[in-house]
């Protein structure tokens, strides 16, 4: 076989295999085990516009078959005016069905949120800019990346150092890694936070700010997700790089996550309900960083 012909056949084979793998990944179902931790992640959601409501409807639909009881909010939970009426229009109404089903929202704030929103009861922040909580075998840290001062960094280090859960998950607004062209990576914050995350064995980080979905290839053993399109979209804003594992910038999206023992399954779901990315992260027992499929 001549070499150009061999190259064409190889390319066709590889593309077919990659497409098939992508299809498989996208249809990978969540295990939906009864004893697992199930949660959703939304970022940059609080517009009060129709697209936010449509994503909320998809979340409600997903909740019927995948009964998550936690939603982590990745900041910019509210845009524009933030009067009591806006809290109804931009939060309580769109997520009414989930709130009624006792789904707990745990917010972090972004640059468009009013600082005093830490005291808005349904955000469950208890008046704190940054805080921690544990669910099953997962330790969550919700951080304030808008004001990442020394005191907060010391708290993050101490809290992660003392965490004994199987999984350590941090979430905050500004992404340490992002290949979206509007904002991109917050390198200034990365240099402050990444050493702490690496030192303390953080497994997964969720952020928003860029209005796209992106899964970044593990960086120093840590998995980074950008999920900032639950209310606004910057269509075509992704500029995938060698660090991009998967991305979606053609429609709004949110994430569903299930932590079952030492496995973390995830799906990114579009406004139409299509699974646009899916996979599983395996955390080896012991202190080793997780591996992904």
């Amino acid at each position, binding site marked *: 076989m001549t070499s150009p012909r061999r190259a064409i056949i190889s390319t066709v084979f590889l593309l077919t295999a990659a497409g098939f793998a992508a299809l498989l990944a996208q249809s990978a179902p969540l295990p939906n085990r009864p004893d697992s931790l199930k949660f959703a992640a939304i970022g940059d959601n609080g517009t009060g516009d129709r697209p936010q409501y449509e994503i909320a409807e998809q979340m409600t639909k997903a909740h019927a078959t995948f009964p998550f009881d936690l939603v982590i909010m990745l900041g910019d939970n509210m*845009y*524009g005016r*933030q009067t009591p009426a806006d809290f109804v229009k931009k939060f309580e109404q769109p997520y009414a069905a989930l709130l009624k089903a006792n789904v707990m929202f745990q917010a972090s*704030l*972004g*640059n*468009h*949120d*009013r*600082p005093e929103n830490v005291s808005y009861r349904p955000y469950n922040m208890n008046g704190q800019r940054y805080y921690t909580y544990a669910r099953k075998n997962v330790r969550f840290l919700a951080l304030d*990346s*808008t*004001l*990442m*001062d*020394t*005191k*907060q960094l010391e708290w993050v280090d101490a809290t992660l150092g003392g965490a004994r859960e199987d999984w350590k998950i941090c979430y905050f607004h*500004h992404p340490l890694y992002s290949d979206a062209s*509007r*904002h*991109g*990576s*917050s*390198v*200034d*914050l990365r*240099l*402050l936070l990444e050493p702490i995350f690496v030192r303390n064995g953080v497994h997964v980080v969720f952020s928003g700010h860029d209005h796209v979905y992106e899964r970044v290839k593990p960086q120093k053993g840590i998995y980074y997700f950008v999920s900032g399109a639950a209310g606004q979209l910057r269509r075509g804003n992704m500029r995938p790089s060698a660090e991009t594992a998967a991305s979606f910038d053609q429609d709004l999206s949110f994430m569903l996550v299930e932590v079952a023992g030492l496995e973390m399954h995830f799906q990114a779901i579009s406004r139409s309900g299509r699974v646009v990315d899916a996979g599983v992260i395996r955390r080896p027992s012991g202190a080793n960083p997780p591996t992904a499929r």
Partner: protein
Amino acid sequence: MLRATFPQFWAFALEHLLVLPLGAAIALIWVNVSPESYYSFTYTIAFTVNDVAMVFFFGLMTKEVVEATAPDGLLYPWRRALLPVIAAVGATTVSALIYVRVVDVLDEPALRVAWPVTFGTDIALSYFVGRLILRRELVPFVLLLAIASNALGFIAIALFNPTGELRPVAGAAIMAVAIGLALALRRARVKSFWPYVLAAGGVSWFALFRGGVHPALALVPIMPFLPHAPRDPGFFVDASPDAHDALSRFEIVWRHPAQVALFFFGLVNAGVSFHALEPGTWGLPIAVIAGKPVGILIGAGVALAAGLHLPQRVGWRELVTVGFITAIGFSVGLFLCTALLPPGQLRAETSMGDLLTLAAAPIALVSARLLRVGRG
């Protein structure tokens, strides 16, 4: 009072107005080309530059103010400063109020915590622009306003720091020791500035650091104790090389190292990634360019109602132009921003907003022309 000759004036411009913009320009290019190396470098030296080296820059600024309290000085007698101080209170209050409202309108309410940055006025640039476009007798008024605004800004960042932890009792107790030490040195007629700077200044630095106030201001409470010439040589007039008083010797020794500090200050703090910017960036320039002239008019109105008098040939048109000039935050604005905000988007937007306040200089020029208050 303002005796610098014209060649001295341009020498002043070369010495005081180029190093910080040069550092800032390098920072802006560097951070947008190679952010990782920029932040790695600047985080390493940030403490040394911002908290230690800048002590000498603010020491030199304070030296100018201390000398201005001597006969022939701007602040002699101190009552002369009363009206500019009241005008400065008006200017800073109105700017801060506008800022808080504007960042809300621009949908970035998280930026509200940066309101003390609106107080900053670049003294050297204000002096330069004032000398360029205003009648000579108006320049002291500009300087007094700038000094008063900055003093209010330093108080504001100490009291309203969103992330700082003020420990006033511990800080005040240690500061009392520092001031006692400076007083003892003065009483002992110590003529060298070194014991004042190293001993009293060192304790003062620790007092501010422990008290939760930015330690770059460590020499501000110490400089008044240094022996100085009986008469003010003039604002921004270089000390004579054969001057023997402690304050002049301090200037002679630290003038150039402070410029190096200022260069690195620009390099460390002005690096703003353009990707970090959002509409809230405009909040600061809008607030100070609109707020300072209006606030000065209101403050001056209050002062007049209280029985004070404006300097001769100063009316509302002059006050408006002075307001635009004092809207230039630049070096002091950048310092207030750095002291107030940790690294991240808010600092990036506020720093860039501060650089944009340079637009107040051409606006002041146009204002002077339109209102006919210029040198002509």
